[in-house]
């Protein structure tokens, strides 16, 4: 078992729902976790599907929260967005963009294939220095509250299993195969280097 806790990054598109749900659970279980989004903006559902609320990554959760309360408190309470933002602001101040983070991780977990592609593209475009490997695993999660919660538990279980391996890199393949069978979903998995 590795002496240090896994350094985990959970990445979704807007660093609001899926990644934050997982961030929440993983940090409660004692992981060294950070969460990110890969999108160019932070998007939250708006009054209509074609009218999302768009923020940049500098906007804090608090500001978004206040903005939405002002716009339509009823609606955003009802669809759970305010509740989510409230949770998020207790975890950290603002969403973070994966591409802007230079910290190194052992494990990056993405929440959908598009995000996985973006993470891979970013990691591969970086100049290699230390050759320190980072495993990137994609766990497909639909972007809604329920799936996010279920997905977060799955991610957490996965991280715990990885954490408990004697030799993570050697056992990762097999572990993921088992997980695929158990959870009936395919995981994309690759390794990149810092």
């Amino acid at each position, binding site marked *: 078992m590795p002496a240090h806790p896994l350094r985990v990054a959970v990445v979704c598109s807007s660093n609001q729902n899926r990644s934050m749900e997982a961030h929440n659970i993983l940090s409660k279980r004692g992981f060294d976790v950070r969460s990110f989004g890969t999108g160019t903006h932070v998007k939250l559902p708006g009054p209509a599907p074609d009218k999302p609320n768009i923020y940049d990554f500098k906007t804090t959760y608090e500001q978004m929260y206040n903005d939405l309360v002002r716009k339509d408190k009823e609606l955003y309470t009802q669809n759970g967005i305010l509740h989510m933002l409230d949770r998020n602001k207790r975890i950290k101040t603002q969403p973070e963009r994966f591409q802007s983070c230079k910290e190194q991780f052992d494990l990056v977990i993405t929440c959908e294939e598009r995000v996985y592609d973006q993470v891979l593209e970013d990691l591969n475009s970086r100049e290699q220095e230390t050759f320190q490997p980072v495993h990137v695993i994609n766990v497909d999660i639909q972007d809604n509250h329920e799936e996010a919660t279920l997905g977060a538990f799955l991610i957490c279980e996965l991280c715990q299993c990885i954490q408990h391996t004697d030799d993570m890199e050697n056992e990762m393949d097999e572990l993921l195969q088992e997980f*695929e069978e158990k959870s009936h979903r395919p995981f994309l998995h690759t390794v990149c280097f810092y």
Partner: protein
Amino acid sequence: MMASGVGEQAHGSVASQFYSNEEETAFDMTTSEKVVELLNQAALISTEEKLIVLKQVQELIINKDPSLLDNFLDEIIAFQTDKSIEVRKFVIGFIEEACKRDNELLLRLIANLNMLMRDESVNVVKKAILTLTQLYKVALQWLVRIKSVSDMQEACWDMMTQIKEDVLALLDSDNDGVRTHAIKFTESLIITLSPRTPDSDTPKKQEGDISLDKIPKDHTYIRYDTLCEEGKSALEQLLKFMVHPAISSINLTTALGSLATLARQRPMFMSEVVQAYETLHANLPPTLAKSQVSSVRKNLKLHLVSVLKHPSSVDFQGQISTLLLDLGMSQSEITRCTPATVQPRKRLHHEPYVEGKRIKMAEDDEDKEEPAPVVTPKPSSSVGTQSAIDLTAEFLLPLLTPDNVANLVLISMVYLPEVMPASFQATYTPVESAGTDAQIKHLARLMATQMTGAGLGPGLELCKARDEEVKEEDGGAGESSSKDPLIIRKLSAVSLGQAISVVGAPAAYKSPITEEAPQIKKLPEPILPTSQAPGASGRKKVFKLADVVQPFSEAQIEKLSNMAIKRILLSEKVIAQSGMSHVRVKLLARLVTQFEGGKKNDLLQFILEDMRGRSELAFSLLYHEYNEYLSQQPSGSLDSYEHCLYTLLSGLQEKPEQRDGLFTKLVLEAPVITDSALEVIQRYCEDESRVYLGMSTLKELILKRPSRQYQYLNVLLNLSSHEKEKVRSTALSFIKRMYEKEHLKDCIEKFALTYMQFMVYVLIFVASPWTEETVRQCLYLYLSLLPLNHRLVHELAAVYTEAIADIKRSVLRVIEQPIRGMGMSSPDLLLLVENCPKGAETLVTRCLHILTDKVPPSPELVERVRDLYHKRVPDVRFLIPVINGLEKNEVIQALPKLIKLNPIVVKEVFNRLLGTQHSEGSSSMSPLTPGELLIALHNIDSSKCDMKSIIKATNLCFGEKNVYTSEVLAVVMQQLMEQTPLPILLMRTVIQSLTMYPRLAGFVMNILARLILKQVWKYPKVWEGFVKCCQRTKPQSYNVLLQLPPPQLASVFERCPEMREPLLQHVHSFTPHQQAHIPASIMAVLEANSRKPEPEPQPELHHPEIIEEREVPVPKHISMPAPVSQAEPPAPTPVEFTEPPPAQQQQIPRREEVEEPMEPVQELTNDFNLQQVEVTEEASQSNSISEKTDEPMEESAARPVDVADQPKEESEDVLPEAGESSVD
């Protein structure tokens, strides 16, 4: 808190934070003192704290005060034996930092790194590899700078080279992570050991890194050529590693990335890289799981794009974009990733690919000896592979005609695996441009790649030959330059290896380097406890077979034997070609019968995949199984055989479209049919599409396997009551054929009877009521046997008498067909009629009806029925079916009883008698002519039958207008009129005939006149009718009236006073001569209003209802012909006729009234209800016809019928009027 601290230290400079904190608390200390104190602390505290402290020390002596580095080096290095992995990893990190800070330290630390490389923890080894990746470059750069290399430095480099080889060897490590790190090391090594060129895409941070081009060719120790060779060999190793069939997904991903980096940073390798990608894409390792395949493909795409973006990919754009297309990228996306400079080429797309290749090949040929324009000569072997594929592809291209390709596909079909491998499934993209030149070229290349990989093809041979030449030439030229350093390096490597393993032993070596070797090794010596040394080198083990070879586990044995059998299975085609398939079949059957479970199922599955082609195998297996069973007698079990047979049969049964009789063959040739097999056969028979084949098989079984024939027969018998019509009827027809066999007859009969008896005995157990369907199920078999064996009919009668009413009803419905089949000449049927068991009357009646429905009854049948009727059951209804077979007087005798039955039955009787039944032929048989019938009705003794029924019966006759034509009626009237005494209903019939046929009026006048002669007034009822008739037929009747004797004429006027005046006027209109003929007495009656009473006292009314009845039509008839002139009398009548519905309602209760006294047995009611149900259809038809015809017809014609149907109602209404007229 602690945890996160440790975590973050690795990737930030947080250590300095701790350091500064520490500094604040101990601000007075010198750096050196601080380090000492920290190191002292570190020896005592826990791992996590130790790491923090050590990081502080590192920060202090490397960054803050490097002068201290040398002093404390040994103290830090001492931690390399720490128990904690993390601490040991820290030491490696420290070595890296220290050596980067002061390259000279390499001399002292390289041996320690070497030792840590062999650490027992993979994580330490991995860290060491990472560090080595950096330090290799550092060391090379450092040495290159030095003009004159010392012995110690040489030894250091040699060790570095040795470690490098060790890491390359780790590509074959057991550990996935270690291999991954080794790949990355190899990548970095190749980049270092190859020249950077202007088109190299070098990351900024590695701008200053050493590479082959910076190495002076005249260096005293470092040999340019050697390094170049090493680089090439590393690349070869990497490429070889990549094509390993069992490569893990992560290693593959890593290698793909490394190749992309190589291609971009060293475009000279572009060709090898693209080719490796091509090979990989065509041969994804079969071991990959599905999701891994998609991951790998994703990576391949990503890296191909990054390679494509490099300007030097120009020559390979064709190949790369073909690959990308295969990977699911769209052409437009590919175009977007293609460097702009190649725009003109891109338009041709596929063309440049070939052209480029050709040019390249030409170059290759020319440049055999000369280095390629990209400074370095290409590694000869890879050039060989490259051109081998090209050559083979060129060779294949013209051969790929549609015919050849089709043949190839057909041949390779045989070798396709049963299950689509995940890699194929994921990589398969439909061939978009099949048949185009581009696609054929692509195909040729794919095949060439495969062939070259397998060591085949003309290209490879050509290349081999060429390589040999090249080597010879190279050998001559490069001997002096390349051989020497190689030897030196090897020597030193060997000696170093020994030095390491024998720690601290000073050895006397001849070469100058060896003197230095102990020094290199001495460096870690003070730090190393002597006991540690064997640990480091203790990895070498003596080879023992037992250590390496372990006994297989059960599962492994199982797996291996399964695979062995599978191979025999799959070799079907090959063996068939060699003509030894019988051996294979025997072998398989023998082998498999000896194993349990999986293998058998595999084999069975295999057989079922192509049962037709593998039937020989199937039979062989089956016989072997049976043989196995026999050999184990008496204790042997049939289970295994049964399973085999069962699986094969059900496999065939479940497969659609298997019409070649294989199933039959298997069943008939199986040594034993087990119960479960029989179940499958039954299922097979129940399949509507195969029922015939199934039952033929079953029949064969029954006839040819006498030992269990009853069991098989039972299956067939059971199917005879199957719910599917087709199954049932087929089963029945088979059984019928079996029934002819004497020895099966009993069994079948017994079964049928048992089934039939269910109707009586199962009654108690069946909760749900008997439905027609269930009754039918019990009877199917029986009824189909009945025509074959008439004797059985008595059994039915026996069961019938005991069954409940519902069942009886159903039975009566279903027996029609078979009874008709038996025919009325059947002695057994006649016997049944003769005996007519008590309770089976309805059954017999039904039989009679069925028999005589279409055909006139035979004399024998009539005889039996007559007998039955007279001697045993005097129910007149028995006679109905055979009524046409009876004597005339018998019919007349029975008439009173018959017409008292319910109207529908009466109607039927009349239909039979009058021949108005739907069928032909019976009318000719009728014992009575229509006229005779009507006359017989008039002559029925009123004591035997009430007048109402008679009237209804006559009305039925009048209803048959086709039969009772005016001529018939005239004859009837004539005959009736001649009778003495006159029949009561005479005048009613006369009036009714007149209504139907007004043209009979003249004839009627004649009748009336003749009646006067017969002193009609002596019959009160008839007389009454006479008057009405005259009333109706005036003025024709005036002449008749004038013939009446005066008292009777007066009586007429008494009844109808309004007649007098017109008659008088009629007389007045006579010529005087004519008037003279009128007797004076008559004239007196005409002119004077004489009040003479009736000449004779009215006799008592015997039949008051007759008057009513007779009265009924009268007012109506009167009203009808003269509706305008006589408006008053008809007033009440229309009211009556506007309400036909109540009349119909009344029919029902009345029918019951009539029947009640008739019913001898309760069941009979049911029976007749049943018949009514059937007859009502006809009745309703005729009703509707009459209803329709009513409308156009004169109402008067319809009325009598209607009236007769509702006598009560009418009598109430009509009575007052009749009363008036009669009282007056």
